[in-house]
């Protein structure tokens, strides 16, 4: 696994605009960064990432099975009791999912280590499935990269195929896509998935989360008063559970993407439970619930993560000897999460390539590994502004 500088494609910014990629630069800082790429061997991809990705996904499904059947665990996962039925039913009915992303620390050697599972609202799907694919195509066409250069990225193909299966399972329904207002990144992500659904011949519509309405029977509606019967929401279940319209969930006949049972996987409580069920698994990091920290005495340093947290917010690296000493500056990220409690994960730093800390996101569509995305940051905690770099297999 190498980090190799490369010339940027002339005029790529304009091309980005043509394809609706508006958030390649945010707040004057580059997010999409094609001044370099990562190069993997096929073995690193297949043995190092692809196999563990599919295996961990299966392990995660076992965790869901266990949590669903156990009230105590449902509480530990902070699923509000009034929504237990919804979550349990969606699992027992076998509600299909679309996608998820596992985040790994992997340097090309040894075992990839699971940081977390973005099972409910993963983003950077456009950059991965389409934009880095196009980057490779362009660089092969221009001769900057060899013709046999490949990429671990069948994401778009698999998404379209999964949408075809979902259409078969959900005939005659329009699929509404939703995200919050005032975020180009989320809007772009949802537009991309809507494009994939259209390619699978699904009827689609869009609604902002804030614009969703309800009728007297508790059905949800869009701004044109169309009843919503099937919805992809780029909005966390743990938020929806706690909001006013959350009371109507389960009372209406809506198929959800991601399905409610994903709320168990997008939850950091997953990590200590995985460690309990599959102790010493080579791709897992030792992880502990807050009230079981005595079990963690062997580890000098732990990463403290909120049960619910997104994009690296509110994560701190703490030192066992000095109680909870918040490390300085870049080792502690701030943010609005943490009220539901924390979990602790043995510290395993991201590999460094030059000055850059590198995180690998490994995508799953249904249960199949579908490609990777790479994020870089100058600090050890990857956040929403961390840069996205393309990769190749050679």
């Amino acid at each position, binding site marked *: 696994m190498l980090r190799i500088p490369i010339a940027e494609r002339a005029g790529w910014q304009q091309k980005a605009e043509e394809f609706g990629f508006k958030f390649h630069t945010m707040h004057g800082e580059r997010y999409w960064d094609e001044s370099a790429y990562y190069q993997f061997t096929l073995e690193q991809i297949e043995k190092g990432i692809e196999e563990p990705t599919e295996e961990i996904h299966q392990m995660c499904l076992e965790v869901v099975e266990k949590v669903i059947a156990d009230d105590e665990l449902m509480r530990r996962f902070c699923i509000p009791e009034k929504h237990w039925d919804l979550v349990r039913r969606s699992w027992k009915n076998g509600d299909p999912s679309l996608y998820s992303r596992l985040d790994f620390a992997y340097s090309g050697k040894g075992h990839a280590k699971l940081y977390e599972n973005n099972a409910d609202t993963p983003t950077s799907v456009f950059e991965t499935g389409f934009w880095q694919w196009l980057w490779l195509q362009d660089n092969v066409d221009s001769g900057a990269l060899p013709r046999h250069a490949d990429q671990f990225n069948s994401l778009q193909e698999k998404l379209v195929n999964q949408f075809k299966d979902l259409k078969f399972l959900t005939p005659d329904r329009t699929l509404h896509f939703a995200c*919050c207002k005032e975020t180009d990144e989320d809007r772009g992500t949802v537009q991309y998935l809507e494009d994939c659904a259209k390619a699978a011949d699904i009827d689609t519509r869009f609604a902002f989360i804030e614009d969703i309405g309800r009728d007297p029977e508790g059905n949800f509606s869009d701004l044109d008063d169309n009843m919503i019967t099937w919805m992809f929401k780029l909005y966390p279940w743990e938020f929806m559970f706690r909001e006013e319209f959350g009371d109507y969930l389960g009372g209406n006949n809506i198929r959800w993407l991601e399905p409610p049972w994903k709320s168990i996987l997008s939850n950091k409580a997953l990590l200590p439970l995985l460690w309990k069920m599959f102790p010493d698994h080579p791709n897992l990091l030792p992880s502990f619930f807050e009230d079981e920290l005595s079990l963690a005495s062997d580890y000098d340093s732990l990463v403290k993560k909120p049960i619910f947290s997104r994009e690296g917010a509110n994560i701190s690296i703490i030192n066992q000897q000095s109680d909870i000493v918040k490390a300085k500056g870049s080792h502690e990220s701030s943010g609005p999460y943490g009220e539901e409690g924390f979990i602790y994960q043995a510290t395993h730093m991201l590999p460094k390539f030059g000055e850059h800390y590198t995180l690998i996101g490994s995508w799953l569509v249904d249960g199949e590994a579908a490609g990777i995305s790479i994020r870089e940051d100058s600090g050890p905690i990857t956040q929403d502004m961390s840069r996205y770099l393309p990769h190749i297999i050679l």
Partner: protein
Amino acid sequence: MKKSKTINIDMMRKTPRKVPRLGPLAAAVAAITLTACSSKEEAIVVETVDDCVSKTTMTREQCDAAYKSALVEAERTAPKYRSRSQCEAEFGYSQCQSTRSGGMFMPFMAGYLVSQVMSNRGGYYGGTYNPVFHYQRPYSSHNNRIMTADGTVIGRAGQSSYRVGKSSFKPKPKVTRTVSRGGFGSVASAKSSWGGGKRSGGWGG
């Protein structure tokens, strides 16, 4: 190969938002009728809820719902014009209204399509009721024709039935009565005010 074999790049291109049709519709109409779909079926044009009740097997409630859904579809898909006079030049005097969202003009819906096969099979099919419009531009070869929102001419005004493409009945969402909005989004809103609301990203991760 570990990457997607092919991606239809043109499909991914976000061309500029379609500008509403401003010129005469007739030129566009000719091209569309030539490429019309081969798999067709019989449909009737229903003008009002009463008309629907008498001509189809649907109940009054179903006809009412169908009418409302066609109106919404009309607002969404009807040809739009910058001025009332441009619209009236093609659809006739007093035959145009301003759009609900304002700023543009569109013809009144002349009625909506109901599939004869589906109607005979027991009526209401919860699908789409596509609006039709009555084109009235004297001396145009399309004068007095009925057309769908995309400009496809389906026949003369007043025919007892029309042959239309099957896609005219593609299911679209059911229309309901919204009594409140804004019940989702409060947690995101509270969290994004954190840090002075300068948060860049969305709610994905």
